[in-house]
């Protein structure tokens, strides 16, 4: 769906991209991970032509983005910028309506879409619709930024460190929101971050960059199991390599069928990760946890030693 082919870009003497090759499949939640200055933002901004390559090309569904007028391209690609960048002189509703207005939607359709998006991002339309950006908390502003990018229902969403400036709790809530949104809409998302935990929590495809090049691309699990480059290992490690590996497997994939479910064991949802299972065991000083489905029915048991298979 999104394909970078031999993309190079220099800003004066600084080389931002040095021959980037990367393919993001349709419907993926792809995360570009890398240190500061790795060229992540530059790569992202080439998809909607905010930056033009010096050499190479960027393809969307097989078509070179350079072949389309930049404003038209940008209106069909959602973009959440590194610093949120809400229009301070417009209300929340007007901010969200930016692209639909440029596309000439009629007022009634715009108003309906704005309310729909506010609800989707868990902001009460009646309360937030007419506020100014200055009257929002950081987390609320970030949600509005995401809503604005989604307004015209683009198939592709570009997000540049969208949760960078938020506290840990808000960041985690928004990450969960994004995972839910991705699952619900099937959009192709390309998100940039330098936060390993964020990358592992969100990515269905993880691409690690350094010095303007791609080091490795694959599922988070594949990169954790077989880092192709010492720099990938270093980046993903951070002293918590094993915990991170646990964080990308589901507890249910490690579970044994329930034979008995002692009431003394802690219970966690079947959707929990291996890491959450371990955490539950440590918290309860138990050597196993019971997985329960939404109805509270036990569906499996994960023992401490099962985690070694992760």
């Amino acid at each position, binding site marked *: 769906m999104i394909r970078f082919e031999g993309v190079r870009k220099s800003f004066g003497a600084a080389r931002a991209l040095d021959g980037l090759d990367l393919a993001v499949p349709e419907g993926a939640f792809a995360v570009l991970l890398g240190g500061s200055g790795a060229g992540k933002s530059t790569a992202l901004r080439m998809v*909607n032509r*905010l930056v033009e390559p010096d050499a190479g090309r960027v393809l969307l569904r097989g078509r070179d983005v350079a072949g389309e007028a*930049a*404003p*038209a*391209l*940008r*209106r069909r690609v959602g*973009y959440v*910028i*590194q*610093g*949120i*960048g*809400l*229009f*301070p*002189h417009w209300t929340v509703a007007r901010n969200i309506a*930016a*692209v639909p207005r*440029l596309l000439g939607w009629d007022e009634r359709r715009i108003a309906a879409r704005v309310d729909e998006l506010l609800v989707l991002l868990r902001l009460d339309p009646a309360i937030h619709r007419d506020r100014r950006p200055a009257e929002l908390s950081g987390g609320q502003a970030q949600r509005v930024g995401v809503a*604005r990018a989604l307004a015209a229902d683009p198939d592709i969403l570009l997000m540049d460190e969208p949760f960078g400036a938020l506290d840990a709790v808000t960041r985690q809530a928004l990450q969960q929101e994004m995972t839910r949104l991705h699952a619900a809409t099937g959009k192709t998302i390309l998100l940039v971050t330098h936060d390993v935990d964020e990358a592992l929590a969100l990515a269905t495809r993880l691409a690690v960059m350094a010095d303007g090049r791609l080091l490795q691309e694959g599922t988070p699990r594949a990169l954790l199991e077989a880092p192709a480059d010492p720099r990938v290992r270093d980046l993903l490690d951070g002293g918590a390599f094993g915990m991170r590996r646990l964080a990308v497997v589901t507890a249910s994939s490690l579970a044994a069928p329930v034979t008995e479910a002692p009431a003394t064991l802690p219970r966690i949802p079947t959707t929990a990760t291996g890491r959450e299972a371990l955490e539950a065991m440590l918290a309860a000083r138990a050597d196993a946890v019971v997985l329960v489905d939404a109805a509270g029915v036990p569906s499996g048991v994960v023992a401490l030693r099962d985690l070694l298979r992760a």
Partner: protein
Amino acid sequence: MRIATLLPAMLFALALLALPVLGPFFGALFPEAAEPLYLRQGFVALAAKHGGLVIAALLPAAAIGIGLGVAATRPGAREVRVVADTLAGFAQAVPPVAVIAMAVPVVGFGAAPALLALVCYATLPVLRATVGALATVPPDVLDAARGAGMTPRQMLVQVELPLAAGPILAGVRVAAVLAVATAAVGAVAGANCLGTPIIAGLVNGNPAWVIQGALLTGLMAFAVDGLLAAFAPVSASPP
């Protein structure tokens, strides 16, 4: 509007009405003056001409200043920035009265040289304010506008100018006050305005006329400042 912003305008109107009956007062103040009150033209007529001169200069000055400021801040407009800088440097080096004097041989006596000087000098605060205000628009907001698919023109009209409107209007206000003061100098070249009694007073050695012209010019500047201040906050945050 708030009463404070209208007070200078009311004072100015009061002075215009009161001066014609204050002849005996000025006679007592300056016993040696043969005509203690300037009577060659009515003060209201002079003020109207003065105001006309200011408006006639301010409209093109605002248009040129904003236009040049916008052009100078577009990417790659190096030539425009050079022109703007030259204009600013020139005006700093040359006083208005010199511009008027230089303009007389070209455009003749009367209102024309005054108008020329007024446009030159009133453009500058507007230009400076426009360039400064546009530079304060946050880069991430511009990035968001571009990323949303706005054309450069849509960015300017929908985002940059609304966000810069407050400081630009403040620049227009400075220009207007400056124009009121500078217009008085136009009387040197024969422009009919509140500067006329001042020049006539200087030429005839009549300090009463100088004071009457200067008083009205000063009050008019205050009045304009107050009236424009009443507008500014409203336009600074359009819906």
